[in-house]
């Protein structure tokens, strides 16, 4: 899984790089517009270590942001699953918050929370949580009638059990979206760093952009891609493991 994800990324990266270089030589562009292979390699050697540390820094915030957004999406998904007024209210509010582009909210978050860790975390979580929320809301508002019927008619249904049944029945869907949302968490953190932080690979990209240094950006993209591939592969592995264990060992909640 890990090897497959990594070489898939390397193929895409190499193809992208080849395309850029092809364009450079075809159009006779200078290293300022698109750096040549030698310059890219020199830049890689110069900033490799620093950017690796920056990317790890970003990844750690992305992981935390993803955890926060999973908790948030689960909580809102559980509250919003009801067909009551409150359930609808929660759903509408959750959708509305997402309707604001993060670049519009970022300055407010920045003023309230400064340019440190919390700002990055909040923005990462906000970008990552919506697809999670959509899936969790979908899963949680869809009754599994053929299982739930018995508990309802015998008066045994509790909200914890309802959530457990629906989560268990859609475990594959949930683990897939969690693995998929890692990309968004990472992208969210990078956006946050780009607009409102002083650390991480997004911040380094911003500086590289100030300096019109595409070479550095290519190195940053390489690090981001590799770390995301590893992280996603880990999540997929963990998801498959959770699924196997739950199905094999079973839980004992209220049933």
């Amino acid at each position, binding site marked *: 899984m890990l090897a497959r994800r990594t070489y898939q990324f390397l193929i895409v990266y190499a193809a992208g790089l080849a395309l850029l270089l092809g364009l450079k030589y075809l159009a006779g562009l200078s290293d300022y517009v698109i750096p040549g292979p030698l310059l890219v390699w020199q830049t890689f050697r110069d900033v490799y270590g620093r950017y690796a540390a920056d990317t790890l820094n970003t990844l750690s915030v992305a992981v935390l942001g993803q955890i926060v957004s999973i908790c948030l999406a689960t909580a809102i998904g559980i509250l919003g699953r009801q067909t009551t007024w409150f359930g609808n209210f929660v759903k509408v509010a959750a959708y509305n918050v997402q309707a604001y582009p993060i670049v519009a909210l970022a300055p407010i978050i920045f003023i309230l929370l400064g340019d440190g860790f919390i700002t990055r975390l909040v923005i990462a979580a906000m970008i990552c949580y919506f697809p999670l929320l959509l899936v969790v809301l979908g899963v949680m508002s869809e009754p599994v009638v*053929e*299982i739930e*019927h*018995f508990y309802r*008619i*015998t008066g*045994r249904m509790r909200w914890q059990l309802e959530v*457990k*049944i629906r989560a*268990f*029945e859609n475990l594959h869907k949930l683990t897939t979206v969690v693995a998929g949302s890692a990309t968004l968490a990472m992208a969210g953190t990078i956006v946050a760093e780009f607009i409102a932080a002083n650390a991480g690979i997004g911040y380094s990209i911003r500086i590289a952009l100030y300096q019109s240094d595409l070479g550095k950006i290519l190195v940053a993209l390489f690090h981001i891609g590799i770390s995301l591939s590893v992280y996603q592969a880990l999540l997929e592995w963990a998801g498959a493991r959770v699924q196997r264990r*739950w*199905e094999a060992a*079973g*839980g*004992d909640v209220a*049933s």
Partner: protein
Amino acid sequence: MQISCDDIALSLAGAERPVFTALSFTLKGPGFHALFGPSGVGKTTLARLLIGHVRPDAGRVSIDDGCLRRLYAYNLERLPGWSSVGRHLEKITPAQHRARCAELAAEFGIEPVLGQRFARLSLGQKNRVNLIRYLVQDFDLLIMDESLANVDERTREQIIVKIKALFPDRFFLYISHNVIEVARFCRQVLVLRGAHRRPQAVTVPGLDGRGGATVSPEMEKAMLAIMNAV
């Protein structure tokens, strides 16, 4: 123990034709009764009406005080996949019915599969497990909607006989397409006919288990009455 419907009219959302137009009948319990009729005639809808899951557009459903605890089991139900069948039964069986649960598991032939996950059982085993978990609850009326589908005939007979013996004071409404079975084992067979027919439901007496294993003239008569009523 009595359930009755009086001039019920009901149309389901999105359906072109009404399910019931002037449905009236009375069934007196306790005992093992049947609800019989061709596919799509509204048997499941009637079951849902009797347990209060749907309301009629017009008319009245009357359930007397003896039938307050009503359950409805159907053959497509599933048990959660996170624990074994035995563990699930343990959890949902009230303490006072534990012995009965074990007895039913043995009688219904599902003891050997108690350690397995529900998804791994055959369709017949699934239906039997599902039925047991309803039988170990406290109930007055149990509607069994094709609860013995995919179970072989011999086992099905044993199960019905066992239920009749163990729960003589309860009210069962057994939905089945097997005319021999309902004629032989049920006390009254409520035959449901199309919405355009008058009356929409007819009650035919069954043999209530008195006919023995062979087809007697009495049995033939009951079957004929049921088929004529459809």
